[in-house]
């Protein structure tokens, strides 16, 4: 298969970027990636992506945490089995506090893990074919074209009112 070149169009406005993303296929270019300084609804809508799956990690974490909390409290108190203040050895009302805190803690762990997994971070490799301006004020659309059509793609981007950056 012939070598591909990746070319990035940089736009000052995410509306334009979104438009480009929608038009790329028609123009016969394959969309690679979009970089933006902020989460842009327009771009995400243009990409018609399902919403992220982070939530499932969070939920799992939460459930584990809830039971872990209660388990810890109950296990330890049963181990020592000492009466304090006449309270029952296993008294769920106060143990709920432990359960609750653990729920939050573990959901957050789940959340962070989910975040890293889903968005594939840390990912130092991802910084090739990336333009620093994309963290500033530009919305970058990275598209690929088979060798020879670079010119067309550049024109395409420029017509849409963007600057162009070519990655060898």
């Amino acid at each position: 298969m012939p070598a591909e070149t990746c070319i990035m169009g940089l736009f000052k406005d995410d509306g334009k970027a979104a438009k480009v993303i929608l038009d790329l296929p028609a123009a016969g270019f394959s969309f690679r990636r979009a970089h933006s300084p902020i989460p842009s609804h327009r771009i995400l809508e243009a990409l018609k992506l399902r919403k992220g799956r982070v939530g499932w990690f969070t939920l799992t974490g939460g459930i584990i945490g809830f039971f872990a909390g209660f388990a810890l409290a109950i296990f330890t108190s049963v181990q020592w089995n000492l009466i304090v203040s006449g309270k029952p050895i296993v008294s769920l009302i106060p143990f709920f506090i432990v359960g609750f805190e653990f729920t939050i803690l573990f959901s957050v762990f789940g959340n962070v893990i989910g975040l890293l997994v889903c968005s594939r971070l840390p990912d130092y490799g991802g910084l090739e074919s990336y333009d620093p301006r994309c963290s500033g004020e530009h919305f970058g659309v990275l598209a690929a074209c088979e060798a020879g059509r670079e010119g067309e793609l550049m024109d395409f981007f420029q017509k849409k009112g963007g600057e162009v950056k070519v990655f060898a």
Partner: protein
Amino acid sequence: MTDLTYAQIDETVLNTLERPRPRYWVFVALMLCGVLLGAGAWAYQIFVGIGVGGQDIPVAWGTYLINFVFWVGIAHSGTLISAILHLFRAGWRNPIARAAETMTVFAVCCAGLFPFIHLGRAWQVYFMLPLPNQRLLWPNFLSPLMFDVVAISTYLTVSSLFWYTGLVPDLAVVRDRSTGLRHKIFRVLSLGWSGAHHQWLNYSRGYLFFAALATPLVISVHSVVSWDFALGVVPGWHTTIFAPYFVAGAIHSGLAMVLTLMIPLRRIFRYEAIITLNVLENVAKTMILTGLIVGLAYGTEYFIAWYSHNAVEWESFRWRAMGEYAYGLYFMILCNVLIPSLFLLKAVRRSVPWLFAISLAVNFGMWWERFVIIVGGVAHDFAPHAWGLYAPSLVEYCIMVGSFSLFFFLFLLFCKHMPSVSMTEMKETAHHAG
């Protein structure tokens, strides 16, 4: 909110990371000395015995617990601002969220020290951790102090993670605008964030969940702190309103601290265009609310103490208003309820000096609120034959100074080496505005 362009936002914030002037290092050094003073005092206390403090029977808890509650309180508005207001989509939180979260993290660090400091045998503190051991000695999960351990450590972990997650895109910005060592460091710190669409997709979900989880956490944590007292039987401690009342109080003091930090920051870093007067005004408005809630709580406590016709309860509250520590009560009413209600006047809440002054007043008042509760409760409790008073000792003052120094030491370091305003979120605001 703001009409700055992305470029201007980046510029304003990144300018704050320029090489600091010597005066900055002077301040840092000063704070460091404070920290060392505190550390020295603590070492002395461990060596000689907790008796070097002013505590006694009946008042076995003094400034250590007061400062603990104080710092936890400060820690609260950080998460409130970035989480709850994020859920309510209140745009004005964006300029201050970062600094507030930072404040939270550092305040929790300070707070977390005090439970150790106040222990009679600090070197045995690991007894409070559920470490497996062959003698099956476990901590007592019925104890409010264990709730503390769990809650505070959870809070520290969560708020740090929350803080860092929010920081990542900005770290990337710094990375992209810097060279040399800083570039290398931030390249690592920013985890290779490239703002790619799949990253954003999950990021915004994740951040939302973070906010959704942090909110109940904030409430629970300070409820737990309040239960260090409310779960006891001591008159003036054992009352059901404590949890919400402490939460409101915590937010109150936290917001005050936000103002106290933001106003100089805004001035020094020329953030006027970002942290606009409207932002400060909104903080002030929120403080009116929290102030009123706290006031309502004070009132309710007194009303019920009277209504209950419980001799012990009423005597405790009568003494609170007329006893040796009455001034504390009046400080707290004045500084936490009356003075903040000056914010009802637009002129006041839009005048930076007033804002600053009042924020200081509230910090002061909230410290005294904790004093009145923690010391006042036991000093005059069930057993008249054991009533007694308490006065902090020099060692306690040193440690208090130490904790404040530590806080500002960390904050100073942070705001000169990390973006103290979230550029990304500012851009979003600008985006929606534009």
